[in-house]
């Protein structure tokens, strides 16, 4: 199997647009192979029509949807591996940061700032009588 064929699959799953790179443009094929069970990947590749990579976007999407319907478990493994590779790719994390404000860094050691708990929020609840059942 060529990287080009897997890249065309990845770009159908996660196409590019003005903001996002396509998954097939990010050299993710090795990571996807590592994360996707070999038998599942082989089953998907074996079910592709011979002219899959040459087809237009509509044709590729139709082909994959047919495979997904026929082999949902194997296809799900491929999708999960593709998402894992895509959203852990630094170039994608930079896009996520630009579009959503989610910092392209690990959660630690900096963590995040949150306002402390405001006990005034409990004013209504504090007026309520205990309602647990005595036993």
């Amino acid at each position, binding site marked *: 199997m060529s990287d080009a064929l897997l890249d065309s699959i990845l770009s*159908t*799953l*996660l*196409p590019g*647009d003005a*903001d*996002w790179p396509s998954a097939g443009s990010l050299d993710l094929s090795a990571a996807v192979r590592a*994360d996707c069970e070999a038998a599942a990947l082989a089953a998907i590749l074996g079910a592709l029509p011979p002219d899959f990579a040459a087809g237009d*976007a509509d044709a590729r*999407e139709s082909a*994959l949807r047919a495979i997904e319907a026929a082999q949902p478990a194997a296809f*799900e493994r491929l*999708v*999960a591996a*593709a*998402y*894992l590779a*895509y*959203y*852990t790719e*630094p170039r*994608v*994390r930079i896009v*996520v940061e630009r*579009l*959503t*404000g*989610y910092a392209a*860094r*690990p*959660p*630690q*050691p*900096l*963590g*995040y*700032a*949150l*306002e*402390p*708990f*405001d*006990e005034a*929020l*409990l004013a*209504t*609840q*504090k007026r*309520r*009588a*205990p*309602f*647990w*059942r*005595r*036993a």
Partner: protein
Amino acid sequence: MSASDVLIVGAGASGAAAAWRLAASGVSVTCLEQGGWLDQRSAPSLGADWERALQTAHNANPNIRRAAADYPVVDDDTPIKPAVFNGVGGGTLRWGAHFPRMHPSDFRVRTLDGVADDWPLAYDELAPYYEINDRIMGVSGLAGDPANPPREARPLPPLPLGPGGGAMARAFDALGWHWWPSDSAIASAPIDGREGCNHCGPCGVGCPRHARASVDLTYWPRALQAGATLVTGARVRRLIADRKDRIAAVEYVDAAGTAQRAVAKIVVLAANGMGSARLLLASASRAHPAGIGNDHDLVGRCLMHHPTAIVTGVFAARLDGYKGAFACALLSQEFYETDRARGFVRGYQMQLVRGSGPVATALGGYMARVPWGRDHHRRFRSEFAHTVSLTVTAEDLPEPDNRVTLDPVARDGAGVPAPRLAYRVSDNSRRILDHGIARASEVLRAAGAVDVVVNPLASAAGFHFLGTMRMGDDPARSVTDRWGRVHGTDNLYAIDGGVFVTSGAVNPTPTIQALALRSADHIAARLKEAA
């Protein structure tokens, strides 16, 4: 190995608590743990690949994680897949640290509601142990919750709610429903050498600040200081009974792969409700042909989980739910107690769960997976950092056909048969979940959700294995007595969630640990009396 007064199998939530309590009482204690220590100071959340770790090496499911310390779990006959961890700390290494107590009514379900069985003890008997446990685990929260009996001032103030939690609190108020900040085993400020939480989010990969409590950080340092011995890499194969009523030794394989025997006056099983039941069943002998404690075919039966639905609201506003401890913010116990007009008996808790990182959002951790294809990026942006979820945690009642057995084929690395799970969600539990889904949807919409997505049964929610060695006064209807001693044996106890008679509708760890402390006091008193 030299003999100890007490030999504990399992270094998780219950084993650690008992080891400390016994050692602090002057009892010689040894604990066998099949896993090792986890270095939380170098947790994956410090690196770029933390989300990959959550899906792989730190995956909650041992069948996916496949670590050396794990054993396989045959799970093709249950919709709820196992989420357990092996190592010093057990499940607390991987948990969300939500820390509610059971209610007084949970111990009296037969008397109050005519179902299942009462426990052989009452809430008031456990209350002092809950307090001890809360102090050692370093609980953040606020006393005064009208849904629960009074309790001591919490050691630390509540964790922040975040924007999503604040919106939900106001929505619960608007509907006239209960909410309260969660008791959380996460330090909101420094305590006992642990730093305060900095709201990084993924508690499940371990906490490099040690803010999230796990018993490798709380109980084990105290237990070791008090003289307890902890043997890691020790995979227990079976209990050896020299008489019908006595355990003579525990056979295990050490870290070097060598078979060993450990002896003690008293043996304590603390390997969770699946692992401990498995050991009892795997210890069949001429004296115990169906397994130890299994003369009435009850070991492994009445398995209870907490069937969980997850209801997620998608909001137009940014909520930044990836900030903050994922499982700890607030809870609602408005529908916890029985009201038969609702069409079921017993009840449920709603627990706020914050959002996820990009990978988990795309994979649909709490919702459906974000669709692939040309609409993917739009959907991802509408969901990421724009959601808040409520779990609906149902009280599961004991059903004999829900059970742990031994698989005839699969075995672990030491040759011990793998546990096989057989489980169905009961009609009552399903009705509880459906009611909870409707109420959770209502409150999410009241908070302003523009869309509500329902996961009617979370498959990855097999955290809690309860009831497989249930307590009771009648040996024909229970496996263990009111102290956790296995009926028909003199020196074998179980102290993990397997001894639960009913499940309550809350996360069970505080109750498991309170029971373990109480059993430890009983065992220490017995040993003192015998001396």
